């Protein structure tokens, strides 16, 4: 096939130019396994609608169908993953739906390492969360509806990750957006939840607009919506893509920031905790927020080349670094356990985004992979606790270790994985990110990369600190809640245990120089990825980071653990009847009050207030109030002062004024009035007269043009 040969030779040129660090994976086409991969997005989508129409009449009221669909995805994803590891799969299929001018609108599916990773994650994590949700949602008024929209949520994500072109990607993107809106607002009887859903939707919409613009710029300048076409144009050295690349890349990154809740767009994610906990678990693990990371990874061949994307990757690094630290800090002061985890997610997403920004493609996706396990686990654990104590607040918890041992131990595994304790999953992935960043920083000393290295080490400290706080306040000390805590049913515990196994071992899949499964996995793509591979773990960095993490855990334990002075100790761990003052104490000790920083963190850097007061409220009207205030207090002050002075001066001048000056002005005024009355006669407000005058102008100008 000449076309394939031509493409290979272009790739070869590209490889020469970019050195031996780029590697084109050896891959087959996956055969029938890839050809039928369209079932992966289609099955959940179809099932979502089936549940909508027939769910109420089916066994288990829709849960069965939803779980079956996710089970199918999980099995298919696993089979694909295994096949990918054995032979490598790079395949792309497109079906033409229609044309707009020279642009083909296509529906298709990409089967390569990156999309298989996502299929696998959505399928496996989704399946576990769905199983868990059966018990968690029991007795909900809209049980079937929940599973319909939840399946749509997973299906939308699969449409997104299977997309070979921007159009389908945006369709999936919007499906995820709209189903997340439905799910966040699931308990819509409460106004706060509606607000949260609206906030998530609106914030995402702002970013989506940027994504549309970016996708349109990029597709127009490359001449196709197809990703592979765009990359081919890139390798051929298309000039228009070079010209518009920066703006396209930036706009698309802004879109990714919205879905992945990066720094200025992070506001919706903690509020999105209003949804049921399984939704949070899936949203934070494999769906929705990873979409942004996935998008950057999908377009990584573009972002890795500054001659096309300009300095976008620097912006990505800085945004990611700011996010990972600032959001970690916010997690310190939250009382709501789910909010802590939410900010933790945003912080970890910052790691992934920053990693992709510095060119650590594998590291970023590896962290995405491990994070899916331990964050899903932590959320399910939090859900289990909430299920037991009927409250989201950690000031209502404490001492649960005794009542919920399974939850405690799995949560502990998740915590270890998140903070990066050897040999749990987070240790390997976070280490790889920091190593890659450090390698880039030493090879290419750029401010942004150093900034990221420092911030990510600080971030690791913060992560350890707040996780120590969560574990201490939740599982140690005295139980302070009202409800009777109990261990969750088996159907909830089993997924947690399964995820705990994943969280403990997922990191072992990519030990540098040893296993490197995930590396092979995600670099199996039709276009080569330029990045540095480590032959072995970077012991030097481990030697820095691990003590930092341990220090964080220690300080957290000292401040919030049962032995701390701050901690309220009851009568030795048993549940006690806690009085109101004691509760107040509990709430106060729960929050870590750093003198200056605390108010800032408490108010989430005032960003929510800024959006609310700067963007939302003014559009609803009160911009007038603000203007009025400024007008009354600032603007008026000057005239008032002036007026005070002027009044005395005026009295003196009045005499002259009345006689000489007034005369002049009266004449002037009368003249103006008379002129106005005269001119008014010329323009009597009749449309036809205006038409006549304008056409007279047309005639005159036309005549002038003809003459000259």
């Amino acid at each position, binding site marked *: 096939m000449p076309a394939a040969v031509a493409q290979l030779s272009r790739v070869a040129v590209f490889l020469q130019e970019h050195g031996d660090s780029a590697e084109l994976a050896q891959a087959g086409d996956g055969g029938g396994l890839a050809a039928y991969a369209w079932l992966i997005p289609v099955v959940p989508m179809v099932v979502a609608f089936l549940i909508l129409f027939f769910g109420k009449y089916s066994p288990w009221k829709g849960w069965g169908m939803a779980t079956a669909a996710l089970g199918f995805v999980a099995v298919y994803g696993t089979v694909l993953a295994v096949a990918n590891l054995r032979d490598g799969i790079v395949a792309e299929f497109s079906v033409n739906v229609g044309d707009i001018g020279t642009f083909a609108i296509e529906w298709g599916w990409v089967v390569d390492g990156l999309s298989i990773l996502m299929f696998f994650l959505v399928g496996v994590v989704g399946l576990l969360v769905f199983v868990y949700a059966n018990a968690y949602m029991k007795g909900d008024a809209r049980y079937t509806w929940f599973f319909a929209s939840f399946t749509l949520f997973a299906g939308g994500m699969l449409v997104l990750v299977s997309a070979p072109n921007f159009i389908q990607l945006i369709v999936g993107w919007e499906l995820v957006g709209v189903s997340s809106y439905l799910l966040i607002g699931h308990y819509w009887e409460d106004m706060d939840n509606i607000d949260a859903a609206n906030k998530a939707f609106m914030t995402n919409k702002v970013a989506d607009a940027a994504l549309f613009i970016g996708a349109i710029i990029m597709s127009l300048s490359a001449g196709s919506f197809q990703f592979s076409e765009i990359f081919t144009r890139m390798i051929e050295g298309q000039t228009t893509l070079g010209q518009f690349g920066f703006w396209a890349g930036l706009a698309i990154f802004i879109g990714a920031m919205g879905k992945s809740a990066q720094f200025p767009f992070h506001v919706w994610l903690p509020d999105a905790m209003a949804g049921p906990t399984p939704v949070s678990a899936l949203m934070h693990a494999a769906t929705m927020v990873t979409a942004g990371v996935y998008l950057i990874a999908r377009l990584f061949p573009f972002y890795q080349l500054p001659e096309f994307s300009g300095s976008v990757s620097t912006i990505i690094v800085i945004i990611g670094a700011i996010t990972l630290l600032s959001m970690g800090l916010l997690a310190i002061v939250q009382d709501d356990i789910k909010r802590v985890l939410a900010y933790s997610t945003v912080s970890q997403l910052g790691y992934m985004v920053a990693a992709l920004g510095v060119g650590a493609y594998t590291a970023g996706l590896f962290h995405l992979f491990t994070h899916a396990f331990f964050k899903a686990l932590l959320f399910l654990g939090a859900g289990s606790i909430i299920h037991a104590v009927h409250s989201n607040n950690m000031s209502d918890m404490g001492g649960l270790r005794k009542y919920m041992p399974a939850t405690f131990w799995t949560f502990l595994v998740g915590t270890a994985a998140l903070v990066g304790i050897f040999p749990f999953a987070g240790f390997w992935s976070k280490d790889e990110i920091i190593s890659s960043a450090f390698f880039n920083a030493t090879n290419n000393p750029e401010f942004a990369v150093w900034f990221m290295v420092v911030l990510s080490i600080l971030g690791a400290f913060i992560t350890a600190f707040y996780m120590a706080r969560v574990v201490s306040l939740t599982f140690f000390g005295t139980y302070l809640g009202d409800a009777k805590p109990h261990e969750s049913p088996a159907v909830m515990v089993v997924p947690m245990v399964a995820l705990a196994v994943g969280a403990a071992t997922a990191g072992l899949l990519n030990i540098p120089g040893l296993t490197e499964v995930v590396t092979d996995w995600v670099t199996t793509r039709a276009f080569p990825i330029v990045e540095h591979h480590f032959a072995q773990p970077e012991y030097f960095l481990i030697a820095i980071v691990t003590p930092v993490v341990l220090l964080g855990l220690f300080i957290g334990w000292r401040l919030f653990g049962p032995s701390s002075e701050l901690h309220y100790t009851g009568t030795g761990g048993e549940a006690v009847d806690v009085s109101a003052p004691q509760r107040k104490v509990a709430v106060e000790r729960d929050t870590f009050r750093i003198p200056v920083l605390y108010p800032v963190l408490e108010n989430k850097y005032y960003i929510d207030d800024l959006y609310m007061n700067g963007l939302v409220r003014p559009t609803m009207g009160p911009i007038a109030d603000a203007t009025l205030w400024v007008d009354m207090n600032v603007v008026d002050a000057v005239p008032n002062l002036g007026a005070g002075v002027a009044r005395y001066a005026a009295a003196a001048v009045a005499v002259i004024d009345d006689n000489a000056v007034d005369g002049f002005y009266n004449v002037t005024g009368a003249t103006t009035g008379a002129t106005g009355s005269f001119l008014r006669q010329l323009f009597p407000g009749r449309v036809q007269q205006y038409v006549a005058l304008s*056409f007279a102008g047309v005639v005159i100008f*036309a005549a002038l043009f003809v003459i000259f």
Partner: protein
Amino acid sequence: MTIGDWLTESANWAFLFLAIPTFVASVMVVSSRNVVRAVLYLVIALGGSAALFLMLGAEFVGWTVVLVYIGAVIILFLIGIMITRAPLTKSVDLSHPISAKAPAALLSVLLFGVVAWAVVESFGLETIPLPEEATRTGEIGLSIFTSWVIPFEVVSFVLLAALIGGIVLARKDEPAEVP
């Protein structure tokens, strides 16, 4: 080319056969003193223009004029007139007085003069090739949906807005509902 040459061409006779009624009818539209008749003259003028389009081979445009203008717009006009209680007899107040008509006439004649001058200057006696057969509608459709798809969508949006606007404007104000 002399007038004589011009008149020997049968197509020109067909042109005159259509153009003169069209012009006369449009003059009647602006000068008739009976409002319904004026609109009926508009039918003739537009029908004449439709026939001229057919002559130019623009069949789709021609029949669209018939369908949209004569079939819908004129009906709208007539209903509008009838609802605003037009008298059967001649009305005196359909037009402005002669003092306002004179400058308008002058302006129109000037406009025509300038345009005619410009056209004769720039085109002279260039000829127009009449098509052998009518434009295939399929080709127009293809062109609309490839080269002109965005204007087409914009027009459809404008039509939708006009539809909604028309309904909102023309509906009677409902008395405030008592819950």
